[in-house]
């Protein structure tokens, strides 16, 4: 048996909001595109389990990209980005994802993201319901204040370890130690982007009072939240879902804020439920 993974990597150039990015993405499978966003300050290896899942990739083309400034996706090619503080906005994040899907010529994609990716999934459903067949906000909510902290970049502390260990408690003690440590390791690599990402997560993202504008007849919404997530708790996920007409909510037991990365086998069971729900909803549309 070959030891070469079926997962392949590519770069695609994305132009958005006057910025040019060379975006790295991993992909595997064929079928409806399932576009996956990692969490703030991390990169696409968080989706390693899903990317190599033989059953799901038999039905879906799983695409996990690195957001610019993360992993192998560099900051913008055409600006002196080092002269500005990085503060991700809801406008740019949402526009970027649409531009990426356009650049990849994706038809009826499902978008799934965790944490700040879950929050932007809600933004996409709100702003671009025609562009996405469905969204799966994982560990997302209408509003998630409190994590835009200077500690992530404090020059008197080891920022890599603060980011890695500061997010450690977001994972469940039941999750396999090796997978939690991989997730910790990704966080040590992203400390210069983490705080700027959290500007979107905790400051600019605010859909309070707007959730009822989301049209789930055009873009289905299935939220999923882990019970060990102290940032976006199951109560936050359930509250958010209850205010979106037609949205579904799944509480995930014995797992935390990085479910796809900290314990893929447990996450997978819930993801299959979410994909089944989406299939039944989109079939009902026709």
């Amino acid at each position: 048996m070959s030891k070469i993974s079926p997962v392949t990597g590519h770069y695609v150039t994305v132009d958005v909001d006057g910025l040019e990015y060379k975006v790295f993405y991993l992909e595997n499978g064929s079928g409806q595109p399932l576009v996956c966003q990692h969490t703030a300050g991390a990169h696409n290896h968080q989706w390693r389990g899903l990317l190599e899942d033989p059953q799901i990739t038999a039905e879906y083309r799983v695409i996990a990209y690195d957001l610019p400034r993360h992993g192998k996706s560099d900051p913008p090619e055409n600006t002196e980005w080092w002269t500005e503080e990085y503060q991700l906005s809801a406008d740019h994040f949402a526009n970027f994802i649409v531009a990426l899907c356009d650049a990849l010529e994706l038809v009826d994609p499902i978008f799934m993201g965790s944490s700040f990716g879950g929050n932007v999934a809600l933004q996409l459903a709100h702003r671009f319901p025609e562009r996405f067949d469905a969204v799966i906000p994982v560990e997302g909510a209408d509003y998630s204040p409190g994590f835009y902290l200077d500690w992530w970049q404090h020059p008197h502390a080891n920022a890599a370890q603060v980011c890695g260990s500061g997010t450690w408690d977001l994972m469940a003690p039941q999750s396999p130690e090796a997978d939690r440590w991989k997730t910790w390791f990704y966080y040590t690599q992203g400390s210069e982007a983490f705080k700027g990402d959290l500007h979107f997560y905790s400051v600019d993202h605010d859909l309070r009072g707007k959730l009822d504008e989301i049209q789930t007849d055009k873009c289905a919404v299935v939220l999923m939240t882990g019970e060990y997530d102290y940032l976006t708790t199951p109560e936050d996920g359930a509250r958010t879902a209850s205010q979106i007409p037609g949205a579904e909510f799944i509480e995930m037991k014995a797992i935390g804020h990085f479910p796809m990365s900290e314990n893929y086998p447990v996450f997978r069971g819930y993801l299959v439920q979410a994909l089944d729900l989406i299939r039944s909803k989109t079939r009902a549309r026709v």
Partner: protein
Amino acid sequence: MEAWVQKFTEANNQDPEIQAHGKYFTCSYLLDMAEHTFVVRVVAGTIAQISVDPGPIEVPYQFAIRASAQTWREFGKPVPAPMYHGIWAATFQRDMKLEGDVLVLMQNLRCMTRQIELLRSTGAPV
């Protein structure tokens, strides 16, 4: 109480992760468990001393981790319930408070996180 002090000290001083990464893990902090307080003094990854119920201004410390005895008892279970599984979780969602020179906590966050998790094997002393 002395048995717990010895157990926690040994658990730390024999912990492979802390011993591998604790070369600069030097600080002192207060564990306020309401029914009892402890000042833990760590030198280069080794617990040098745990002062039990020190008197007022008797033993200095750099930062404090405070919570009710009930919260610490939950920390002391082998598999803690949600929101009792770490100092960030309990600070955001329960009654834990991080006080004092929190920068020192952040400078030692990796080893501190592991050290607090040792309560899962030693149990809480309250």
